[in-house]
């Protein structure tokens, strides 16, 4: 057994993992990053549209600040978000954009003078002030009251990941590629690292660390149609679940993106609609204003995706040999805009559909896109259940997004959480609790268990094979645990997933190729993915309300009185076929923004008894502290600054601040 020691083990080389690694490294700790693929090929590279931060530089962003960003985020989350975390996030997001700018991200900039734009289907001219010329500009995204999404053409994630990835090289951070964490080394109370499998030859290694951070991204591949990369299988979350003590939170909160190209599921960015693109039906009718007269195409993603599916069900979808879809029309943006600002979209349309989006409409239909749920952590990224275990990025449920994430808030979360959680990791390593105390017997046992698991699979003579089981699971998830959910369908999904879990324990492999064996890898991952799928389905079945992306036809109202709580799924018994589900209440009395109407979508929530008193208290505090300044009011409503690392507490400068 080969053992590798390090201070900090970061599992995941996407934006979140790399940024956390940098923070810990800058504090002097030795860091090793693991990744399934070369770090720059992580799925963060696929983020097209942009990153939200309330710089307020451009004319359409004027007046933006942390308060507006906070309110948009909480409303977007359908009040599922942790408001303290949301406050920390909106405060640090401008700093993150500015840090990335200094490191080399070529953010698009404000051009002073008249700029052509399309708003609500009409050509307009936006006059950018000379004072803002050359500062970072922003585009419109769904669910936001200001143009707040900073971008690099439509290659934002690529530009960010390359800068952060090269920064990690500059800091000498080791990235061990083609390595897959397959279990955590722990004693039920403290995490000591991970057992890791080298994908090129199947060898197992023990990585022993004082602190371990899971930043393995989303798990979209449990669905049949997903915008996610093929490596987004959620193994990081699954190995946390396997400990039996670490809970996954809000797994039923799954986002579907309105505009995935049909049928391949490849994303075209929300920037298409932000920049003025329209949704049309089979009759070429622009239907979104009929449902959402105010925000139209730019309501939040859950709302737009649901309206689209309903419109298709009402018989307005365009038909093709693969089924029904709708159209995204960006022809009105013009060739120049598309070639400059929506270039990836243009390439994707050319290569995968053979069309020119400046002339032809794009066939689209909502597809799985983002996992709001994940490893439950506190505001500093510390996982519940195991000391020394952290998580950040899409793999985590830090709970910035609640039941619906706003576009542009995710890549922002990766770097912001990386900055905050990386510091918390460094603090932990510097503290007494961060000392390494693991016994070799524990490491040996974890290693042997993983080795036995793979050997057992490789020698398995069962009649089942992984590929059809995987396909079946993906179909169940897309058909019965999708955009529109119903108790009966969810129950049948849970039942059938139980059967699949049992069948997945009777696999037989066809190949016994030495070295890397893709079939063995796939078989092993299937068992993990089935558990995640079951957490999603079971959580969705039990949540008898509709909130954000979780929509129950049989319970269409948001129920704050009964369901203002976070789902926590644990899997204590390895041979179980269902998770144990518990809940954690959200405290309305500590909310800065008590539950209300989002400003779009349905307006029929069942009120929480604490909402009215809290609202009255907030109004009283606002009146009392009217002259005391913004910071004093903030501290009275929801203090958060003390939770941030000292260097991230300062006020964010904006154009036009009083000198």
């Amino acid at each position, binding site marked *: 057994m080969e053992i590798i020691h390090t201070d900090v083990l970061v599992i995941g080389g996407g934006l979140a993992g790399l940024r956390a690694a940098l923070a810990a490294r800058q504090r002097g700790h030795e860091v090793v990053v693991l990744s399934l693929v070369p770090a720059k*090929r992580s799925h963060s590279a696929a983020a097209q549209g942009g990153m939200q931060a309330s710089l307020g530089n451009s004319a359409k962003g004027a007046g933006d600040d942390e308060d507006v960003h906070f309110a948009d985020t909480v409303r977007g989350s359908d009040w599922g978000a942790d408001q303290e975390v949301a406050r920390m996030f909106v405060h640090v997001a401008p700093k993150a954009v500015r840090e990335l700018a200094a490191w080399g991200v070529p953010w698009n900039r404000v051009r002073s003078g008249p700029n052509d734009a399309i708003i609500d289907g009409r050509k307009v001219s936006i006059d950018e002030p000379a004072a803002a010329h050359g*500062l970072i*500009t922003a585009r419109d995204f769904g669910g936001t009251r200001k143009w707040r999404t900073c971008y*690099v053409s439509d290659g934002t994630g690529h530009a960010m990941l390359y800068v952060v990835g*090269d920064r990690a090289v500059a800091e000498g951070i080791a990235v061990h590629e083609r390595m897959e964490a397959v279990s955590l080394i722990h004693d039920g109370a403290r995490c000591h690292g991970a057992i890791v499998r080298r994908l090129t*030859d199947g060898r197992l290694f023990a990585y022993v660390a004082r602190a371990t951070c899971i930043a393995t991204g989303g798990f979209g591949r449990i669905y049949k149609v997903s915008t996610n990369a093929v490596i987004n299988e959620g193994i990081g979350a699954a190995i946390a679940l396997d400990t039996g003590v670490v809970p996954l939170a809000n797994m039923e909160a799954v986002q579907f993106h309105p505009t995935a190209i049909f049928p391949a599921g490849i994303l075209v960015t929300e920037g298409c609609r932000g920049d003025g693109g329209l949704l049309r039906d089979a009759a070429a009718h622009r239907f979104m204003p009929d449902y959402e007269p105010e925000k139209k195409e730019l309501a939040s993603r859950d709302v737009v995706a649901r309206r689209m599916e309903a419109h298709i069900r009402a018989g307005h979808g365009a038909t093709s040999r693969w089924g029904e879809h709708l159209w995204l029309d960006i022809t009105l943006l013009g060739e120049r805009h598309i070639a400059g600002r929506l270039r990836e979209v243009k390439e994707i349309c050319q290569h995968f559909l053979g069309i020119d989006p400046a002339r032809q409409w794009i066939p689209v239909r909502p597809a799985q896109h983002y996992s709001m749920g994940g490893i439950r952590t506190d505001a500093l990224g510390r996982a519940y259940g195991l000391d020394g275990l952290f998580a950040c990025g899409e793999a985590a449920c830090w709970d910035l997004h609640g039941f619906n994430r706003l576009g542009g808030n995710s890549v922002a979360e990766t770097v912001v959480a990386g900055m905050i959680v990386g510091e918390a990791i460094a603090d932990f390593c510097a503290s007494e609790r961060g000392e390494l105390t693991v016994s070799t017997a524990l490491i040996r046992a974890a290693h042997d268990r993983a080795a036995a698991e793979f050997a057992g699979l490789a020698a398995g003579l069962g009649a089942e094979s992984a590929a059809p089981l995987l396909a079946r699971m993906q179909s169940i998830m897309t058909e019965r645990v999708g955009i529109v959910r119903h108790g009966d369908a969810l129950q049948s999904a849970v039942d059938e997933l139980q059967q699949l879990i049992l069948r997945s324990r009777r696999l037989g492999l066809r190949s016994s190729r030495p070295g890397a064996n893709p079939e063995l890898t796939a078989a092993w991952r299937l068992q993990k993915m089935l558990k995640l799928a079951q957490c999603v389905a079971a959580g969705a079945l039990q949540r008898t309300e509709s909130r954000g992306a979780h929509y129950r036809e049989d319970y269409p109202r948001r129920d704050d009185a009964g369901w203002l709580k976070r789902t926590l799924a644990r899997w204590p018994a390895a041979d179980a076929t269902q998770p144990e589900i518990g809940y954690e209440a959200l405290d309305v009395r500590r909310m800065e923004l008590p539950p209300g109407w989002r400003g779009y979508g349905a307006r029929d929530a069942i009120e929480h008894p604490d909402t009215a008193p809290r609202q009255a208290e907030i109004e009283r505090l606002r009146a009392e502290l009217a002259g005391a300044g913004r910071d004093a009011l903030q501290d009275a409503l929801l203090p958060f600054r003390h939770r941030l690392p000292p260097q991230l507490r300062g*006020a964010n*400068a904006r*154009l036009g601040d009083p000198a």
Partner: protein
Amino acid sequence: MIRLFRKAPDSGRPRRLTASVLRHNPADPASAPHWQDFVVEEAEGMTLFIALNEIRATQDPSLQFDFVCRAGICGSCAMLIDGRPGLACRTLTRDLGERFTLAPLPFFELIGDLSVNTGKWLRGTAERLRTWVHAAGRPDLDALEERMAPELAEAIYELDRCIECGCCVAGCGTAQMRPDFIGAIGLNKIARFRLDPRDTRSDEDFYELIGDDDGVFGCMSLLGCHDVCPKQLPLQTQIAFLRRRMAALGF
């Protein structure tokens, strides 16, 4: 009327495609490189991503290849398609003949079958060329960002679009002869940081990095790279420009 998809070459019965794959498993001492044919039935809109996954799911579960984004964004899936470097995920089978060959990218270490270790080479190149903005001190995160002309930001992004797929290196004659040649990918990166005013390095500093035969002077300007770059980076103009600048410094 909107025409959705490119016309299939022949409507009617789907074609039976034969993919001839160059296979080899270096981890297995008994393995020697050999061609193996796989037959798949073509489907509408089929890409090599779909075809190879179908082969792996139904015919040979041990076949190795790399896909991540399957959308032409991440640079994982470059291989020789009928002998020419390209991204497999965005290659439609309808643009290929009934019989085609797939082989791993040359130049990079072979992991197995169509999978090569570009990551190792790229990390080495990043360390060697120091591909990050060199600036003094830590930025002030509370202050307004430094201004940049919008056109300059766009010009930097134009060069920043490289996805490190390795196609250019695979298509480069110099790289086949000189294992330490930095390739068009490396030269483009230098051009990118040279253009960036946030990077304080001078032309003399860059000369130190690329002013030799493993750098800009090893390039024979045959432009195999330019033609195969899937992101259509302006490699030709960038390489020519760098050559002139570096030659002026060198003599």
